[in-house]
């Protein structure tokens, strides 16, 4: 085609005009995009970082983590991707633990109280060691070493140190798990807590245990939960708990039984499975042999009446559990914290026998014993009954010296045992810690302790992953000077190192030596994840990876029988408590403060609770309809009384709690604990009543009944809910929900039609009115 100049100019003009027109018809948002290919200074990174593998010590289940260190300062805590438990993931508590290392109120130096009525005075380590030696001089046969439940090298050293002085090592856990240990021992024959193959299960049935938040190994369980939901046949999750925890909120079916009736609920589910012929005759026989008295006298109507759960819901749970297999059932937490706790948990674990879920894919997974005979692989707090006996010895003056670490007895024990009075009768109370706690008010010697980021150790997670694991803990930072380098933040030493320095040296001179010796012993086994030509290289290899594990060493179950304890729960009395309404108290671990050990850190304090979204305070969760009936509104200050004492908490009504139940988080109410924890909230542990599990003597910490009364004051609950205006997808639809196989587009259309219906209806009403 030939174009002359005029035609060319005309065509060019038309093309240009067309381009403008078409551009104008294009998506208008293109005009709004401002892009820059240039990296601005804000985008740049400087300096080199180093990541060290270590274990979390007291702040989790011995989780394996990586610590980011820049110029000698720890900056982040993340899950170790190589570690069999954490698999590179985290909880809300990991980074908060970092703030204990750099806490502005860390104990700087040892402190000595020269007389029981005197004050603590700063002292040198030389003076502190001299005082320590004096305390040990007459302690033979009269020494008690109190720690949190610790495993691995530190547990070994604490036990051996106590034994050297013919004393005892007692573990304290304010929220006892002894019933759980007892139940898995009696039903499954396990010495260590088992784990659960959640990632391969098609149905998970759990009771009482907040396993996605605070119970067991929540990081690892969280990873498995992700896999559980990602399966081709998306897993179905049933959870039974009187109060909606983070875990209950994730469930497809939430059952809210009367507190203490969880065992009956399990038997009701079993009864339906057996009646409907959903289990094999062999499994039924094995199950009935494991239950004292079998299922005689158990009917669904009776179970429904006892548990307060509809028959239809029990049937639904039973059918899912027995038909969508592999299935796994487990329990803990508040389900075991009753006078009949052993029965409850035993009946729950026995459900696995009924569906053949013991030691199978998608079921219960046994954990083997310790890789090294000497290293304890399991630990639990001494029973409450044992503690009552021990405190009686302290009061009687039969104990010369008590050494305490990782256990804030004054905060963690109920008022009824008056632990303060017992401590006053002990001539030498030595307390280790990083930040001043409530027990230190009764200490004769306070010793600043290194955090897990500064000290050596080995950690054996419990529950483990189904095979042997020995995690390593190593100092990732040196002694920390303050930001302006004016001095040490803390002249702390490791608990194990101090004990070893005071020992006869027969089981080690320092914790590094103990750890390297343990790694050398592991090297000599010739197996596991680290292979090296020498013990030194093996040790370095294990430290680099964060530990050693042997996937070939697994455990095995031995089916036993549910411990024969009371089947029905007993609760504390409220007759003498004056005015108010009776509620059943369910204390629960805070998702960020845990049992209060992280209360000193601002990150843990500010983290919103998943259910209430509250922070920095103690609140009380009650059913919203019941609250309406009682005239209780959010923020009302409630006085909560038991026969053991009283506390105040802010009312937070919501629909996710069983009527008659009041849920209060553990973790606040410290007298000390640094600027972020002191005099904040209330300590719910203090008002627990000394009811015990009839089988193990463990504290039945969910068996307290309280009387609740409005104080006549109302304050704003510090919470995140409402801080940001909700922007729903459709009015009334804040989160898009689809059915199985449904597309988001279809669900949105349906929501929209539902929304429009109300207007269509109104139009018709208006027309009719006209």
């Amino acid at each position: 085609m030939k174009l002359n100049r005029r035609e060319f100019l005309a065509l060019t003009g038309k093309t240009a005009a067309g381009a403008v027109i078409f551009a104008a018809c294009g998506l208008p948002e293109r005009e709004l995009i401002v892009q820059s290919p240039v990296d601005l200074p804000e985008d740049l990174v400087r300096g080199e970082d180093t990541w060290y593998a270590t274990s979390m010590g007291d702040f989790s289940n011995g989780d394996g983590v990586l610590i980011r260190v820049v110029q000698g300062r720890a900056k982040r805590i993340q899950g170790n991707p190589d570690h069999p438990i954490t698999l590179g993931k985290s909880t809300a508590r990991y980074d908060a633990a970092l703030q204990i290392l750099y806490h502005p109120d860390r104990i700087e130096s040892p402190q000595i109280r020269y007389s029981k009525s005197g004050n603590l005075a700063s002292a040198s380590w030389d003076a502190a060691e001299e005082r320590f030696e004096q305390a040990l001089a007459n302690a033979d046969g009269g020494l008690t070493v109190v720690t949190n439940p610790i495993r691995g090298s530190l547990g070994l050293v604490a036990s051996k140190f106590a034994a050297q002085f013919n004393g005892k090592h007692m573990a304290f856990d304010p929220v006892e798990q002894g019933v759980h240990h007892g139940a898995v021992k009696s039903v499954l024959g396990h010495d260590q807590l088992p784990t659960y193959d959640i990632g391969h299960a098609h149905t998970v049935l759990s009771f009482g245990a907040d396993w996605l938040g605070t119970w067991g190994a929540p990081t690892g369980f969280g990873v498995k939960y992700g896999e559980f939901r990602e399966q081709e046949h998306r897993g179905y999750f049933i959870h039974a708990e009187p109060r909606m925890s983070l875990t209950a909120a994730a469930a497809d079916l939430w059952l809210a039984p009367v507190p203490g009736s969880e065992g009956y609920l399990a038997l009701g589910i079993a009864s339906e499975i057996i009646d409907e012929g959903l289990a094999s005759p062999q499994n039924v026989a094995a199950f009935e042999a494991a239950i004292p008295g079998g299922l005689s006298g158990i009917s669904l109507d009776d179970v429904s009446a006892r548990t307060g759960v509809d028959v239809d819901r029990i049937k639904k749970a039973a059918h899912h559990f027995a038909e969508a297999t592999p299935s796994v059932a487990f329990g803990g937490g508040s389900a075991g914290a009753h006078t009949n706790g052993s029965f409850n948990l035993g009946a729950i674990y026995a459900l696995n026998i009924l569906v053949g879920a013991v030691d199978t894919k998608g079921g219960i997974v046994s954990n083997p014993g310790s890789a090294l005979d000497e290293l304890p692989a399991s630990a639990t707090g001494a029973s409450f009954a044992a503690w009552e006996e021990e405190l009686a010895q302290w009061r009687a003056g039969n104990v010369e010296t008590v050494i305490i670490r990782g256990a804030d007895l004054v905060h963690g024990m109920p008022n009824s045992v008056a632990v303060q009075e017992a401590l006053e009768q002990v001539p030498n109370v030595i307390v280790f810690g990083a930040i001043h706690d409530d027990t230190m008010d009764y200490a004769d010697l306070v010793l600043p302790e290194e955090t897990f980021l500064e000290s050596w150790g080995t950690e054996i997670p419990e529950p483990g992953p189904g095979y042997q694991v020995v995690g390593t803990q190593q100092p990732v930072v040196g002694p920390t000077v303050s930001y302006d380098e004016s001095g040490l933040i803390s002249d702390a030493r490791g608990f194990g190192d101090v004990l070893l320095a005071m020992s006869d040296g027969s089981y080690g001179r320092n914790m590094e030596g103990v750890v390297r010796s343990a790694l050398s012993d592991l090297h000599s086994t010739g197996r596991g994840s680290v292979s090296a030509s020498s013990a030194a290289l093996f040790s370095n290899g294990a430290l680099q990876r964060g530990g050693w594990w042997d996937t070939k060493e697994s455990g095995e179950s031995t089916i036993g029988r549910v411990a024969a304890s009371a089947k029905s729960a007993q609760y504390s009395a409220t007759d003498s408590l004056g005015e108010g309404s009776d509620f059943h108290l369910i204390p629960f671990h805070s998702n960020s403060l845990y049992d209060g050990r992280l209360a000193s850190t601002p990150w843990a304090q500010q983290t919103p609770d998943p259910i209430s979204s509250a922070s920095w305070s103690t609140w009380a969760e009650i059913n919203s309809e019941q609250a309406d009936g009682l005239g209780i509104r959010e923020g009302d200050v409630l006085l909560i009384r038991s026969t053991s004492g009283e506390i105040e908490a802010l009312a937070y009504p919501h629909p996710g709690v069983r009527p008659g139940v009041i849920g209060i988080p553990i973790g606040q109410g410290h007298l000390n604990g640094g600027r972020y924890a002191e005099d904040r909230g209330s300590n719910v542990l203090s008002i627990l009543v000394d009811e015990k599990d009839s089988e193990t003597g463990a504290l039945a910490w969910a068996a307290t009944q309280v009387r609740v009364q409005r104080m006549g004051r109302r304050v704003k609950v510090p919470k995140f809910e409402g801080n940001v205006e909700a922007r729903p997808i459709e009015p009334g639809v804040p989160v898009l929900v689809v059915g199985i196989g449904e597309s988001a587009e279809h669900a949105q259309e349906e929501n929209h039609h539902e929304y429009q219906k109300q207007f269509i209806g109104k139009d018709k009403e208006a027309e009719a009115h006209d």
Partner: protein
Amino acid sequence: MTTAEFGAHNWGMVVDVDKCIGCNACVIACQAENNIPINTQDRVERARTISWIRVERYWEGDFPDAKARFIPIMCQHCENAPCEPVCPVYATYHNAEGLNVQVYNRCVGTRYCANGCPYIVRFFNYWEPVWPESLRNHLNPDVTIRSRGIMEKCSFCVQRIRRTSRTARSEGREIADGEAQTACSSACPTSALNFGNFNDPNSKVSKMKEDKRHYTLLDQFGTDPNVIYLAKIDADKKVGAGEHASHG
């Protein structure tokens, strides 16, 4: 030109709401990674908190059928971001990798961007951020501390992306899928948060966003977010006509 047409990387996130358990691990990881000031009780009570990612909780139904629904919300890094054109000083802009970036030393604190953002994920520093001296030890040297009077928000942990790309460049290779992770996605135990490159058709996030459960928040505003949500599944929800009941 959109980011999808522009370069090798179009960073984005896929949030599988069905896996979110509301644990807040992402929230605290973000706080630690990005030097976000402490949300004191006073700030919580005055609704002046700064939280680049938040987990919203909504109630549905009454006891015993009550359900708590969680959804994590962070800057959606919109391709058509309402916050960008309103900034008089170009403190917020869209970079070539799909990030909606905030230039702190340009910001003069007009807060127009926060007014324009329908997701309410921009935060104004009403006070100078303060940490006790010893706690400053854990501050991340890769992230600027924002002073009083300026706006801040989720950056998709741009410092982590830069560090990863620098490592890859020095090793003469491309960034592998999943290698660059934000603090929140790295922390998330259930893998509800997934970060990656939408420009790579084989990346995990590219495949995830093809799921039939995908949607974007406040789609009606046409912001074209780089954060894609996968809807929560309710196994007991009855699916209406036109949909096949099968496992999703």
